[in-house]
């Protein structure tokens, strides 16, 4: 029953060097034709943060804090993981289709292509987290034991992104419409996650079904020392059941179809 999942992880482990080297290579060649190079990885998020802060923080909220925390910090703690999650989901889904021409002419483990995209995006993420920590503590929010939970939530995020992109990359190779659909969904998802506005009441309960809610609120729980990850066991259970379900179907569909990818192009 779990043969395919084990196989999937085995392939990742066996080719871990290849994943990191390909990711480094890709991120190097990505910004090669730019004059500012990798600096764009910081300019781009900085511009977006500024826009959301002005529109949602100063504009709609009139600069009111969220539960005593400055809106800017609250926003930043949600946007930093989002800047990693959104491109990882979109590019992870596209990863196999994009490389199929190159990869199919050789014996290459297709299952590591989504991981390469995730690792590639994670360089920027870790740099941004570092900046985030400096800003948060610079605002006078002291680090506590809660902050260590960040490691757990980063793990959750990677696990979720990996499961999801194994599934989506297979589907979007077979049915191209899926990729276009996913891009639209991600745009909507920015507003359906607690990133730029503060949900409350019944709406918040329904929004909790979105697994990104768990990850993003988890980031805030850790950074702002709000609560432990085991304080809400049902939500903890829900996230992991959903996560493992996605992984189960992703691994099975991927293994089943990958031999025939070329036939479906």
């Amino acid at each position, binding site marked *: 029953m779990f043969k395919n999942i084990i196989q999937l992880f085995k392939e990742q482990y066996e080719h871990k060097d290849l994943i990191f080297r390909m990711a480094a290579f890709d991120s190097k060649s990505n910004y090669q034709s730019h004059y500012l190079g990798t600096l764009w990885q910081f300019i781009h998020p900085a511009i977006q943060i500024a826009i959301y802060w002005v529109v949602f923080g100063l504009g709609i909220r009139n600069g009111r804090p969220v539960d005593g925390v400055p809106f800017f910090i609250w926003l930043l703690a949600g946007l930093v993981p989002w800047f990693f999650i959104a491109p990882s989901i979109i590019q992870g889904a596209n990863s196999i289709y994009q490389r199929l021409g190159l990869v199919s*002419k*050789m014996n290459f483990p297709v299952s590591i292509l989504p991981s390469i995209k995730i690792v590639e995006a994670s360089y920027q993420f870790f740099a941004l987290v570092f900046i985030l920590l400096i800003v948060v503590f610079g605002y006078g929010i002291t680090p506590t034991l809660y902050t260590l939970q960040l490691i757990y939530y980063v793990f959750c995020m990677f696990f979720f992104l990996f499961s999801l992109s194994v599934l989506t990359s297979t589907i979007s190779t077979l049915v191209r419409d899926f990729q276009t659909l996913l891009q639209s969904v991600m745009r909507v998802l920015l507003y359906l996650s607690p990133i730029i506005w503060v949900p409350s009441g019944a709406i918040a309960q329904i929004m909790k079904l979105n697994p990104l809610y768990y990850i993003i609120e988890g980031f805030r729980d850790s950074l702002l020392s709000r609560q432990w990850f085991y304080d809400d066991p049902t939500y903890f259970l829900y996230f992991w059941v959903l996560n493992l379900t996605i992984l189960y179907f992703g691994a099975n569909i991927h293994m089943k179809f990958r031999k025939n990818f070329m036939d*479906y192009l």
Partner: protein
Amino acid sequence: MKLKVKAINITKHFMMNNQKFDKLKRLFHLDKGDSSQKEFVAVNNVNFEVYEGETVGIVGLNGSGKSTVSNILAEIIQPTSGELIMNGKPSLIAISAGLHNNLKGIENIELKCMMHGLTKFEIEELKPAIIEFADIGDHIYQPVKNYSSGMRSRLGFAISIHINPDILIIDEALSVGDSTFANKCLLKLNEFKENGKTIFFISHSASQMKEFCDRVMWMHYGNLKAIGDADSVTNEYVEFTKWFNTLSENEKQAYKKEHLQKQFVKSTEVIKTNKLLSYFFAGLKILPVLILAILIVLGY
């Protein structure tokens, strides 16, 4: 001699999807019993054995199934039915050799070697040899999109040949380069032969076939028409093309039509499609669990 490749009843069908929607139906396995679906038999019941150190040529008209056979040998596509036993890693060298257009030549060398699983150290060692073999001068530092088709195939060939494959499949890759490069490649291939590697060689040049191959396979409208001694099969094939060329235009059309018609078959259950749909049914089974989870989260 050691057996390298054995093909048992290899058959490959291609879907003839007239509409985009047909592909989707197939994917979800909704086309059961739909006999209007047509399939094209690109390769029909091909059997052969190839031993270590042999060079086997593949000849045939355009569309006779040569490239399908080479793709199956390279494990790029899976045969619809039949079994392929391979003792060794295959490597395909084709004209469109999967180079990354936006990267420089030298970066393509690094990337391709990396993807073949070579270590950093090995790549650094191989690089000068590859650059020298490709022999495209300073263009190696230019993006591949600016290359001519000749330069592209030279680089592709140089990379593929240096990563030391067990079984080489050369799909008309030599026909793009000029004769000096073709000679250089043939010399290198002879070196491979002496080292006991197995080579599949697809070309339209009868002289290259006779000079270079031990045995030749003749593919004819999806069937393996002949396999045997290089000289005799090549001569047979050349005889056939000569005869074909003497036919009038109408006779040629009639001949092609007659043979192509045989290659179209109605969709049968021989093809085991992957049932994406079955996953959705499996998914339905866990639906109660998910609904329960949703209710719990919602606070009931």
